[in-house]
């Protein structure tokens, strides 16, 4: 089966940003509002390597009144296969995902890249699948779920540190979690907005606000030399602007950056945004 990119990329973007208002309720403020039922979509590598990121996501969602369930049958969304072009290997995983997550009211994931896989690329793998449209429309990255669906404006908490926000590309340019530096649009950023609300936090300005870190899935290995150079340049940008903590919406980018940081024994820490947002009250 071939990949068919028949939908206008920018139309997708407009669609994504225009369908936001269908769930304008605030379960925190209105006691009689129903609890949003969230099917938790945890990327495979987060499940195995970064369990604390998953737990932070659970705590954050539960704190905002969501009824969270982790369907244990889930494994991987199929992105590594699809991004290599092996669509025949990715399609069965997309179908599994659809079956597992269809029953939920919302699907929420602490990763922009994996969310984009479901929302923007499953229709190429499962072109005639009924129910896919509904899945696409109810699948959200964590920060956009908080901002757009739960209408969270800011989160109470303290994080008195200098933080560099790494804007992971798929969250930024495929989900439009923020405005990318290439477009002439009003600047905005949902992850930044949530972080900025924390007490004591100082978000550092970077020389290149949204350059790719060079992870790129299998790219990190197949183009190892370029990938690591890109990563080192990102680390250096954050470091030279005084960031103590580097954060982002995708643990995959952070895993690559942390690998470089650890090897070079740099003092910078790497934390997923869910860890900062969920822990900020208890662990300043």
């Amino acid at each position: 089966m071939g990949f068919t990119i028949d939908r206008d990329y920018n139309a997708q973007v407009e669609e994504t940003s225009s369908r936001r208002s269908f769930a304008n309720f605030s379960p925190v403020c209105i006691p009689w509002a129903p609890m949003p039922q969230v099917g938790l979509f945890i990327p495979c590598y987060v499940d195995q390597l970064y369990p604390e990121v998953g737990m932070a996501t659970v705590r954050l969602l539960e704190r905002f009144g969501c009824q969270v369930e982790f369907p244990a049958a889930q494994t991987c969304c199929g992105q590594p296969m699809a991004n290599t072009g092996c669509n025949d290997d990715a399609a069965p995983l997309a179908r599994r995902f659809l079956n597992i997550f269809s029953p939920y009211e919302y699907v929420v994931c602490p990763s922009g890249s994996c969310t984009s896989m479901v929302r923007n690329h499953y229709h190429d793998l499962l072109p005639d699948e009924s129910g896919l449209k509904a899945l696409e429309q109810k699948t959200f990255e964590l920060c956009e779920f908080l901002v757009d669906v739960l209408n969270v404006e800011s989160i109470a908490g303290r994080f008195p540190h200098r933080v560099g926000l790494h804007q992971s590309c798929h969250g930024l340019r495929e989900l439009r979690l923020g405005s990318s530096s290439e477009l002439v649009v009003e600047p905005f950023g949902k992850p930044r907005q949530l972080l900025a609300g924390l007490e004591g936090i100082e978000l550092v300005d970077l020389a290149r606000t949204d350059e790719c870190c060079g992870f790129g899935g299998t790219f990190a290995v197949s183009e190892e030399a370029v990938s690591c150079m890109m990563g080192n340049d990102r680390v250096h940008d954050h470091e030279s602007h005084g960031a103590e903590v580097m954060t982002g919406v995708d643990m995959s980018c952070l895993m690559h950056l942390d690998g470089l940081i650890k090897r070079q024994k740099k003092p910078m820490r790497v934390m997923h945004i869910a860890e900062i947002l969920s822990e900020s009250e208890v662990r300043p």
Partner: protein
Amino acid sequence: MSVADGQPTTQTHPKAALPFVANDERAHWHDKALWFVRHKRDVAVHAVPEWEQLREAASQIKAHTMAHLADYLEQFEANAKQRGVHVHWAADAAEHNEAVLRILQRHGAKKVVKSKSMLTEECHLNPFLERHGIEVIDTDLGERIVQMRHETPSHIVLPAIHIKKEEVGQLFHEQLGTDEGADDAKYLTEAARQHLQQKFHDADVGITGVNFAIAATGGFVVCTNEGNADLGTSLPPVHIACMGIEKLIPRASDLGVFLRMLARSATGQPITAYSTHYHGPKAGGELHIVLVDNGRSDVLGQEKFRRSLNCIRCGACMNTCPVYRRSGGHSYSYTVPGPIGSVLAPSRGMKEHYSLPYASSLCGSCTDVCPVKIDLHHQLLAWRGEIARQKVLPWSKRTSMKLGGWLFRSPALFRLAGWSGRLALRLLPRWAIYHRFNVWGRQRDLPPAPKQSFRALYREHQQRRRSDGE
């Protein structure tokens, strides 16, 4: 890229990129030079509040033109002929080169000056004409520099961006007799100017590319910053303009959209220093247009990749591409490098260029920077699908993805693999983990290997909640 007899080599991108990346200082110098151009582009486009509407308009004009390309081409041909222009059609590079040679031979031309044209690079016109005893001088400064070095351009707008001015100084010292060690840009440019002026005077024919051709008028526009196309078409009596069939736009009024975008996207200038309109031959002269297909109709026939024909060759996707900036244009081993080159190349030879669609982290910056809204990173992804489907992807990669696919279809198998992987990472000594087969670990530590997976922690969390509830 080493081009022997017009045939590029078939090194994969990661291999070809290695020597460039290995020189860390130089690769960073290259990265910063191009980032500076990207920054200038940002400043220029943010001064145009309607930029996004312009992009949309440009994209729609191009989509419309491509949908009616045959009609517009005929309209263009008829109108150009009426203006006294000789119109030639070339199905491929060989026909294009032959057409140019025939014109030159008819005029007994021995010396040609050429302004920048990626199409003639694509057709490898220079080596072809040189084999027929014709001197071809590239007159764009950057192109002249790479020509003197017997190289190809490493960027479609900034052909010599990979060369430092000290190296230009040495080159000019050797070939143009400038002072040894002189690397003042103004001094070197003046030397090149003197050298080229003689070439302009001696030329029998001037060859140019075409930036935009207008179907409704039969005219066309050539954009340069150095005025070299203007000299090259004013002094010699014969002008040959070579254009890919996708350069067409319907009306003169559409030019306003594209001219506002081209230079801003390319270099951050409001407009190129020279945007010269040609409407027929000059008095006593001859004007020829060679319309070249060379695979463009095939791309037009592929719905997935059709939008790549929108390209106006501004080079913005190269300037923004984090991979291009750090690996250099020659690592792509194709006439057009960077994201757009990686989309165009596989249609000219999938086996030869299969690694190019993978020479991208799919960050999408190219898609957002593109003034004509080519969904570049999605087209790169679509090419990967084609490359895997047609089994051009190496067997090892296809097999590992197949195994991954099987593993992820079984939650039990996935759990087992995760558990044993984490256990191995915790127990094995460092030398058993970090060895030459661990490509990830060459420069990076592996992630931590926690005792418990998320699903295990979550189960405990659920149990705690249940017991709290009771």
